[in-house]
């Protein structure tokens, strides 16, 4: 039962093959058994079981949705009333939110049962989950490898089947990169499609919630509940709700898949390229046309991102002052000293570094040269995507240049770590939906992800393209050794 997809669990619950309480207990036991992965930061069985009992009552009353009773875990970037919300930071240790994030609330209203909160890089800043104040998350496929980041706990928990689905967030690749490294399906929707209300803010013009599951079909099912307009998020896009499962079975004959030549250049490791090319062959057999395209400015995505994201982070994280909530230093001389010491001790090295960069690029005399310049290049990148989508329907390529790296390999070199997001950042800057699906294994038997991107609001098409591949292959159903 633990290996079932969201869709399968929903059917098993509806046919009374299993109860929500039985499922919750099964997953809670598995979480306990695999706690060496350090994927969960807060588990409260009494809360989970109370939600499961309520779900069972709802099923008994025949008021269930397809998700009622299906367990889910939330990245610790979403605030929750019943579990601590820490952003994996010492700054928010033990923080209890007075409200639930909109995404959490929507899924709870549909009857999903919360298993707990998932580890991640501190304030979602990182590509390896090594920046968590609460320790590394291990990659279930190889415990000496990073699970990817920032949504490392989300990816590892779905890979290890200690959650059938996990929310995640993506600012520059934080859903797609860990999904690739940990061999699960991960999707970020169009910017503005998921509510940011109650998502602890990092870079507001880029932050977007998404989901990790075993399959694209599951992601579509969860999106039907999770996405939609929210008046509480000022950048939420006002559009009617839609059925994200509607294109799952669409024929792919004649679909134009664009391959950006910049994503297949120097630096791409041969094992990753091989798995990605094999996946593209599958699409060719399904009747798709593979065409070469170019995104020449995409290579500037990283410099642009490392201006915009830190700038917005320095602004967002200015709220942590040790006065109203969060960590307060023990010894200080006056108010300013208290704030400075609280922030120095409460934030880890990566948030501190990004706040410093952001403060500098926004400071007097540098704003135009850095922040405005970056926003201008960002527009050029977004326009390039629009030109590309006139030539093709879907953009495909690798998610990362290599398979998951070892712990410590890049931890002391921020620039090397930043380059891990080379292929994911351009899509984040453009704000288009993107996903990673498992497409095989590379060096040391570590998973490889295929990146698929579509134009704005084409999540349904994107999910259909992924689903067709998953019907033709079984990479997404593989279990890491030791987790059966």
């Amino acid at each position: 039962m633990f290996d079932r997809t969201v869709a399968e669990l929903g059917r098993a619950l509806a046919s009374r093959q299993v109860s929500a309480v039985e499922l919750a207990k099964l997953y809670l036991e598995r979480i306990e058994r695999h706690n060496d992965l350090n994927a969960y930061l807060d588990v409260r069985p009494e809360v989970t079981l109370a939600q499961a009992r309520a779900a069972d009552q709802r099923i008994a009353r025949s008021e269930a949705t397809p998700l009622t009773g299906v367990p889910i875990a939330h990245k610790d970037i979403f605030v929750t009333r019943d579990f601590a919300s820490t952003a994996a930071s010492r700054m928010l240790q033990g923080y209890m939110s007075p409200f639930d994030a909109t995404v959490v609330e929507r899924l709870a209203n549909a009857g999903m049962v919360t298993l707990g909160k998932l580890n991640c890089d501190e304030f979602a800043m990182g590509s390896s989950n090594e920046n968590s104040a609460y320790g590394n998350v291990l990659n279930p496929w190889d415990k000496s490898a990073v699970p990817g980041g920032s949504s490392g706990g989300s990816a590892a928990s779905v890979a290890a089947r200690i959650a059938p689905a996990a929310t995640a967030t993506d600012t520059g690749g934080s859903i797609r990169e860990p999904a690739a490294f940990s061999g699960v399906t991960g999707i970020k929707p169009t910017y503005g499609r998921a509510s940011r209300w109650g998502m602890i803010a990092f870079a507001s013009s880029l932050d977007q919630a998404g989901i990790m599951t075993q399959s694209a079909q599951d992601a579509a099912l969860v999106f039907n509940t999770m996405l939609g307009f929210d008046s509480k998020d000022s950048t939420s896009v006002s559009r009617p709700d839609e059925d994200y499962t509607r294109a799952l079975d669409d024929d792919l004959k004649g679909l134009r898949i664009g391959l950006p030549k910049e994503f297949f250049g120097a630096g791409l490791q041969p094992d990753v390229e091989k798995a990605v090319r094999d996946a593209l062959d599958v699409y060719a057999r399904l009747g798709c046309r593979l065409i070469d395209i170019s995104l020449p400015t995409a290579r500037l995505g990283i410099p642009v991102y490392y201006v915009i994201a830190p700038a917005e982070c320095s602004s967002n994280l200015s709220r942590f002052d040790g006065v109203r909530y969060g960590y307060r230093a023990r010894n200080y001389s006056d108010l300013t000293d208290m704030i400075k010491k609280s922030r120095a001790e409460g934030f880890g090295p990566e948030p501190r570094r990004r706040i410093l960069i952001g403060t500098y690029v926004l400071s007097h005399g540098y704003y135009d040269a850095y922040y405005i310049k970056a926003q201008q290049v960002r527009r050029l990148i977004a326009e390039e995507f629009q030109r590309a989508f006139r030539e093709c329907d879907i953009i495909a390529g690798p998610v990362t240049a290599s398979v998951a790296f070892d712990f410590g390999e890049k931890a002391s070199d921020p620039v090397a770590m930043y380059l891990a997001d080379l292929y994911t950042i351009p899509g984040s800057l453009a704000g288009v939906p993107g996903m990673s699906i498992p497409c095989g294994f590379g060096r040391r038997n570590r998973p490889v992800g295929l990146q698929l991107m579509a134009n704005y609001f084409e999540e349904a098409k994107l999910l259909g393209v992924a689903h067709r591949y998953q019907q033709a292959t079984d990479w997404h159903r593989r279990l890491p050794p030791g987790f059966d």
Partner: protein
Amino acid sequence: MSLTLDDVQRIAHLSRIEVTDADARQILDQLNDIFALIAQMQAVDTAGIEPLSHPLGGSQRLREDAVTETDSREANMRNAPAQQDGLFLVPKVIE
């Protein structure tokens, strides 16, 4: 462009983050590496390009000026590091 130790301390002060002199040296090296990476974008001609702040454009929505929040002072203050009589406590700022 290269930053100096004085720049690091000035930025740290603006950021309200205490940085020890020992840490400042390491931070300086890392920031200089990062700004070397960032400098790549300066080569792009962006004359006349409108800066992009929201991928889908649009302006900030306005709502009716109506009361939407109920009083949740107690819940909102539950996480305060120091409080008394419904007030946040900070070190004395006025003598």
